[in-house]
């Protein structure tokens, strides 16, 4: 067990716990966008910042990536933390002014869009948190999408923005996206995602379109379950 102090409260957590879980476990709210328990952490949204004190030195860290340490003094509400968080929020808001999730969060943090940060128009709702990329790699296991280009031009998508051959159209990236940037439309026997149209499989029992054919082929290949067993939807199985 590791003992540490959070906002004057003494808590002990098991070794290897990240500060974010330790602080939330103590009942203190920390906003985040990119931390998801199912995938590895990337510390991309920077909203979970806290101030830590070790000896005489204080510094700002992202709590989702910083492991709890013995004797650490954590402050989640100091002026410095709130200033940093507010600035991060202002920048996120300037990048994606149209995102409802960000607008709501900004309101909660009492942040308004700033005239000094010109609003972007070409970034959609993407905050480049890499959640979708990590899910595609770690949960689905196909790595169909990634980040490309650098600096202000950095965007998420399939390589060279071309139709991806490895994408299976499962939609896990849409599900995990915290701001709702990725677009997916399912109409009847077609599902459109990442610029490619997937053919949907009909359930052999109930006749409902339930998953892209490519996805079922992928699962069949990975698990060894014959494809004709997978063409029955999860509800009829």
């Amino acid at each position, binding site marked *: 067990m590791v003992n540490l102090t959070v906002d004057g409260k003494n808590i002990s957590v098991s070794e290897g716990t990240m500060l974010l879980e330790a602080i939330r476990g*103590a*009942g203190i709210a920390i906003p985040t966008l990119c931390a*998801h328990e199912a995938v590895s952490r990337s510390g991309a949204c920077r909203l979970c910042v806290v101030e830590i004190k070790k000896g005489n030195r204080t510094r700002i860290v992202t709590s989702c990536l910083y492991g709890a340490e013995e004797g650490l003094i954590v402050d989640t509400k100091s002026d410095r933390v709130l200033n940093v968080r507010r600035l991060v929020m202002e920048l996120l808001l300037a990048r994606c002014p149209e995102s409802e999730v960000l607008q709501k969060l900004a309101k909660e943090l009492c942040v308004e869009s700033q005239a000094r940060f010109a609003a972007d128009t070409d970034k959609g709702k993407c905050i480049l948190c890499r959640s979708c990329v990590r*899910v595609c790699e770690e*949960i689905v296991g196909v790595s169909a999408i990634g980040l490309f280009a650098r600096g202000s031009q950095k965007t998420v998508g399939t390589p060279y923005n071309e139709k991806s051959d490895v994408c299976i159209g*499962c939609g896990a990236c849409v*599900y995990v996206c915290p701001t709702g940037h990725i677009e997916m439309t399912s109409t009847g026997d077609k599902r459109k995602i990442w610029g490619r149209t997937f053919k949907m499989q009909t359930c052999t029992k109930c006749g409902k379109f339930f998953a892209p054919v490519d996805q079922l082929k992928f699962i069949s290949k990975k698990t060894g379950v014959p494809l004709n067993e997978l063409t029955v939807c999860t509800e009829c199985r």
Partner: protein
Amino acid sequence: MNIVENFDLFAPRLINKKELLSSGHRACSGCAEVLAVRLMAKALGDNTVIASATGCMEIVSSMFPTTAWEVPWIHVAFENAASVASGIEAGLKALRKKGKIDDRYVKVVGMGGDGATMDIGFQALSGAMERGHDMIYVCFDNEAYMNTGIQRSSGTPMGASTTTAPAGKVSSGQKTWKKNMPEIMVAHAIPYVATVCPSYPLDFIRKMEKAKSIKGPSYIHCFSVCPTGWRCPSQMAVSMGRLAIETGVFPLYEVENGHYRLSPDMPKKLKPIKDYFKGQGRFRHLSAEEIDKIQEKVTVEFNKLKEKEKFLKIGN
């Protein structure tokens, strides 16, 4: 949260893994209601306080001196789960104002069975919703007072045989139609009303998360199959829930500020309710004419809902 439309296979791996209703409780085998409670707890997360009316879920989860709950949970009488939940909400607000508790956001949830919601606790619920407390009320509807021995409630459907509305030579089970509770809640003009079923877990979790994100009163009506009381095999609980949705007996929809949306899980063409009645002992005695009468009512109600969705679509 985005709309879960035919998400399969990978999305379930991304939902909350923490169990807030521990195993080892004493629900009957095949209980769909406890499955629903578990999904509810998963969707709501740690920062929740629950006020639970008397009923199955109280009996099975809190056998003294044990408890299955990992979140603060208060057992109250049959009639006042909603009033206690609204009291907790007001109390938390006062304590927060005084700086006595942490500033995290805590969702207050009232829960009860169909009897506790539609009959005994009805006026308390109506009052709490009207006052606009920031809370969720979840009704776990298994269509009778199952915990005390299958007595009829106003949630019991027409024709079902219960111990206080038994089928026999003179009577053919319940003589009245099921009270349309979600519609009554819509009439309270609250921000969010939804119907859910644990046979559709992703839809369930999405609706629960939506209710959680709304600052104001919301009502969730959960259809929970009770194999013991419905006289059906316990392994049929999940498929029975699906049949109820596919036959239109219990349509899945949500109402946001008076605007309707049918769930994507709803089939385009409904199955005949015979399929749903077939597997249940409580409908065994019904004659073909009686089933036709019930079928007509179900079709009318479903068409009514579709019309409402057409004219009061979300986004219009």
